[in-house]
């Protein structure tokens, strides 16, 4: 069980020698290491032109219900810009029409999401209130869809936009179940979850989302919550703001002005 003492003495020297060798090899590597570090630093400097910094922004949208004319141009533009399937089942944004009659009954419709406008209502007689409501992903600050995604395929960016990673989504459909607003769907071509992204690829370049761009009456207002001067700041100053399903406590960032109590 015991080792002979003589072996220890020999190995002590051997350790000394190997330590020396080791340090020598390290010193050879030092210039190489320095070179590599320098290369990294150079790269970092080269890329330090004003890149988009998501931490400087936080996006939201205002919707003025009393300005929406239900033309559906926003629905069409969104499908064009984002390559959304044209079947009448998949929408990143859609428009609903509410008709409330004097008896208090409410009827809601959204023919093909409103993409080609709406067919005429039967008659004005008996109408108490009627209006159009555009809907889209509310880009919640406490999104239930992000909470339930098992793999981290849907997530909120630092600038407040909820995105879906198409190359990571396993299509379990839990996020679609968890969204209280019906904003999510499964794209049948990629078999992944999909939804409005606030046209992230546009807003990070300083453009407006496609739906805001084409709205003819200015019913949709886009803005940066972190900016003191923006159309959204004015919108939230001069209108009483409602959000959809506030009792769900999802903290939506789509702010509705003139929203009727019948809207779900």
């Amino acid at each position, binding site marked *: 069980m015991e080792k002979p003492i003589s072996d220890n003495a020999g190995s002590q020297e051997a350790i000394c020698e190997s330590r020396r060798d080791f340090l020598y090899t390290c010193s050879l590597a030092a210039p190489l290491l320095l070179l590599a570090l320098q290369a990294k630093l150079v790269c970092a400097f080269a890329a330090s032109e004003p890149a988009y910094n998501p931490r400087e922004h936080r996006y939201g949208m205002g919707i003025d219900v009393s300005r929406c004319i239900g033309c559906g141009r926003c629905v069409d533009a969104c499908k064009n810009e984002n390559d959304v399937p044209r*079947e*009448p*089942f*998949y*929408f990143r944004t*859609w428009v*609903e029409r509410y008709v409330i009659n004097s008896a208090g009954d*409410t*009827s*809601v*419709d*959204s023919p*093909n*999401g409103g993409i080609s406008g709406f067919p005429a209502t039967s008659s004005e007689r008996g109408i108490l209130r009627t209006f159009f409501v555009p*809907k889209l992903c509310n880009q919640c600050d406490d999104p*239930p869809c992000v*909470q*339930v*995604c*098992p*793999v*981290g*395929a849907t997530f909120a960016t630092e600038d407040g936009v909820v995105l879906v990673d198409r190359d*990571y*989504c*396993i*299509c*379990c*459909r*839990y996020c*679609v*179940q*968890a*969204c*209280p*607003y*019906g*904003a*999510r*769907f*499964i794209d*049948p071509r990629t*078999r*992944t979850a999909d939804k409005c992204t606030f046209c992230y690829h546009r807003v990070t370049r300083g453009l407006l989302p496609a739906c805001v761009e084409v709205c003819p009456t200015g019913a949709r207002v886009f803005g940066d919550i972190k900016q003191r001067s923006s159309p959204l700041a004015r919108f939230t100053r001069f209108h009483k703001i409602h959000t959809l399903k506030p009792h*769900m406590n999802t903290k939506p960032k789509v702010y509705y002005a003139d929203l009727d109590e019948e809207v*779900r």
Partner: protein
Amino acid sequence: MEPLGEVLKQVQGYIYPNEVELQWGLLIVVYPYVTGLVAGAFILASLVRVFNVKELQPTYRLALLTALGYLIVAPLPLLAHLGHPERALEIFLTPNVHSAMAMFGFVYAWYLMVVLLLEIWFDYRKDLVLWSAQEKGVRRWVHWILTLGATDLSNKALRFDQSAGRFITIIGIPSAFLLHGYVGFIFGSVKANPWWSSVLMPIVFLFSAIVSGIALVLLLYVVSTLLRSKAVDMLCLDKLASFLFYALVVDFSLEMLDFIHRLYEAEESIGILSQLVSSRLFLSLVILQALLGTILPLIMLGVISPALRSRGSLKTPDELRRLLYVAAAALVQVGIFSTRWNVVIGGQLFSKSLRGLTVYKMQLLGIEGLIVAGFLLLLPLLLLLVLIVLLPPWPEAEAHLPEAA
């Protein structure tokens, strides 16, 4: 897209445009049904181990193997349902700790590896060692591998097997509760859906799981005993039926509590949910789940089993009683499957706008079709057959230590 076009025509009222496609179909009905049977069968087995219900001893090993067979099949409907099953491993690689579905993957893995497999291994170890010593050919090697090389059969080792098995069962009971209660939580925690979102959901799921598990083991015990031309132990069967009765009482009470609570509070969703139950879910909920699946078996078992009175309120000859037990257990299976259907499909038949109802177009072929679902329901029984051949649970197959010299 044709089925969706058909669905669009049958929508009543208003649904959000994206809701026309039901997200979770038949496969996701099969899944909680299968995991429920696992939890129920295991809890039945634990009645023997931990609560020393001696009468149920003949079903002990059968219940464990049943649980294993169903547990192995449980992930299959989920995998089949995923749009990208090849990415399924991501749930274990980058799980979102806030997601009930992700965490369930670990609950499942824990239950399989640490509870069920270990319990079976400790219970069978002695037999595995003896069988591999006495047999020849493939069976010998399979059994030898399964011993993992732990061939010590001394009294100390056997006592360790017993106490380890007991310890694991004690951990196993809350684990089984967690396994199927968690599935209930996956639905119950979805605040967006008023049909699912409920504190009671995990509890209801769990007790309906216990009910279905006991009923399944009852059926399997009768069928397997008769197929082997042996006599059915009526004391065991009577005990099984009594436990089934008690579990049904709790399950029914919980469902009635949920029902009364919803009607009494009459929250905003009560309008559309009442419409849902009276139109789309009338057959599956009122008839299949409540009447045929719960109330009728309750009456049958209450009257003929010794649950309420020691010889049953109505005395019946053994063979008739056995037949009625089997009928009640079969009705219970139909009832619990309907329960899963009503939760999963029912929760998607109404719009989150609370203004409309849609329909579910069940397909025959295709991965979400009836044929695949039927196969997945049959597969655990086939697996059970393999397990029974490999690890016979019958008293006569048990290996005995040679008499001490």
